[in-house]
């Protein structure tokens, strides 16, 4: 018997650093492979549809309700200052700058990220990934690159969709009290949004989408220990992704604020 393993800190903390390093290498490998043939375009489109189908109903519902609730709740404080005419622009700022990208990403982390983790995890533990490898098919390209590309493309689209649905919900609520048209409402909503805000929102969604894909595939690809491992991969994909999304949100907001001045 060899000596028991020595740990630098403790087993858990060491594991975290090793995980971070491996996940980083996994991401580097993605960037190396994404521009190389074969591109599996059909599979990317298929995965994009899957992501849309899995999350669309929840995103529609959540966006619509958040739009209505947010408008109702903001009306009272604005009324105190006689500033209800600012309502559309306030909702616009909230939706585009914060809620759209963030809430969409959290929903996708829950629905799409966990799905990817579970799917690849079960392919891993039932040796389907090995089966690809022995048939001379690169499973990283076929499974990981396609899914990460799909989430990176789809989350920004879904975030934009969420924003418009949210604003539409808000519009319906505003119309109960004031007379306005949809066009005027949307114009007002976007009146205080600058280019930099739009860029930041899109950039954020892209980063979130990438995170959802890479964490889900990483956790799935590294699943071990049978069916329990599959559940764990799905679970961890969600937890780690949400954690990273919050950190990324803070960092990107900070960077855009610097860029403004």
């Amino acid at each position: 018997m060899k000596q028991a393993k020595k740990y630098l800190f403790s087993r858990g903390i060491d594991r975290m650093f090793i995980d971070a390093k491996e996940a980083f290498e996994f991401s580097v490998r993605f960037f190396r492979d994404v521009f190389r043939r074969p591109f599996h375009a059909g599979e990317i489109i298929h995965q994009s549809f899957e992501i849309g189908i899995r999350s669309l109903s929840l995103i529609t519902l959540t966006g619509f309700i958040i739009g209505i609730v947010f408008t109702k709740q903001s009306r009272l404080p604005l009324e105190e200052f006689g500033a209800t005419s600012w309502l559309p622009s306030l909702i616009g700022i909230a939706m585009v700058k914060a809620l759209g990208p963030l809430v969409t990403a959290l929903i996708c982390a829950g629905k799409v990220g966990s799905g990817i983790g579970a799917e690849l995890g079960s392919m891993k533990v039932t040796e389907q990934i090995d089966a690809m490898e022995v048939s001379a098919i690169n499973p990283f390209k076929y499974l990981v690159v396609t899914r990460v590309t799909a989430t990176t493309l789809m989350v920004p689209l879904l975030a934009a969709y969420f924003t418009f649905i949210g604003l539409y919900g808000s519009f319906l609520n505003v119309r109960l009290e004031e007379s306005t048209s949809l066009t005027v409402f949307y114009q007002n909503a976007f009146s205080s949004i600058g280019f930099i805000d739009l860029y930041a929102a899109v950039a954020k969604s892209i980063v979130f989408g990438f995170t959802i894909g890479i964490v889900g595939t990483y956790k799935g690809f590294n699943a071990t220990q049978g069916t329990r491992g599959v559940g764990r991969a799905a679970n961890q994909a969600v937890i780690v992704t949400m954690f990273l999304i919050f950190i990324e949100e803070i960092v990107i907001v900070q960077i855009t604020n610097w860029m403004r001045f």
Partner: protein
Amino acid sequence: MKKLQKHTININEPVITIAGLHKSFDELEVLKGIDFQLYKGENLAILGKSGSGKSVLIKIIIGLLKPDKGDVFVLGQQVDKIGIKALNKLRLRIGFSFQNSALYDSMSVYQNLTFPLTMNIKHLSRKEINHAVDEVLDAVGLLDKKKQMPSDLSGGQRKRIGIARTLILKPEIMLYDEPTSGLDPITSAEILDLINDVQQQYNTSSIIITHDLTCAKNTSDRIVMLLDGQFSKAGTFDEVFLSDNEQVKDFYHYNFID
């Protein structure tokens, strides 16, 4: 059950040569110096109890695992030293039938079969693809299951589709990991017939990993036992099981009397 028919084995032409192979996982030493050759046209059965490292051994042969020490030559190439391009080229010449079939759950039987084909050979016509699918499904006797999903198949049928999936690329070497495990005796016998048919029809050299003596006896020219990380002396079924080695005797004993 059909017996393995006479076929030519060319002992001057080894297709797999393994020398001094060692493999450990952390503290666990699984393979401790394996040496053997598989000759062209030969069926070799590797017997050993659960956890003895049989699967690890053939995963090293196909390059899914890296050896710690030793040489592994397959069809003239050193598996662990060649680049991924050359390795993939080599893999197309080897069929690997997984212990648990490893069919792609999200694909139908038809798609399972066409996937390795279309991914590796570009510009095949629909007709050529269908022809190849029908040919291998016919070889495994499951022509009627084309549209089924893997979850709708029985264990034996899954094994056969797994074998069909490897046959579609016309391999020169077949590696079977426990082709009969978990199957009833009749279904096992059918799989053994299939292995022998494949050997006849596709003229392959094969390694058959098993802990089922009936399987070893009926499909192989030569048998070897994996005991404590090393190979026993290889020989015909009778030669191996007439030996005085206690572990070999035990293995024989428990296979037939429970």
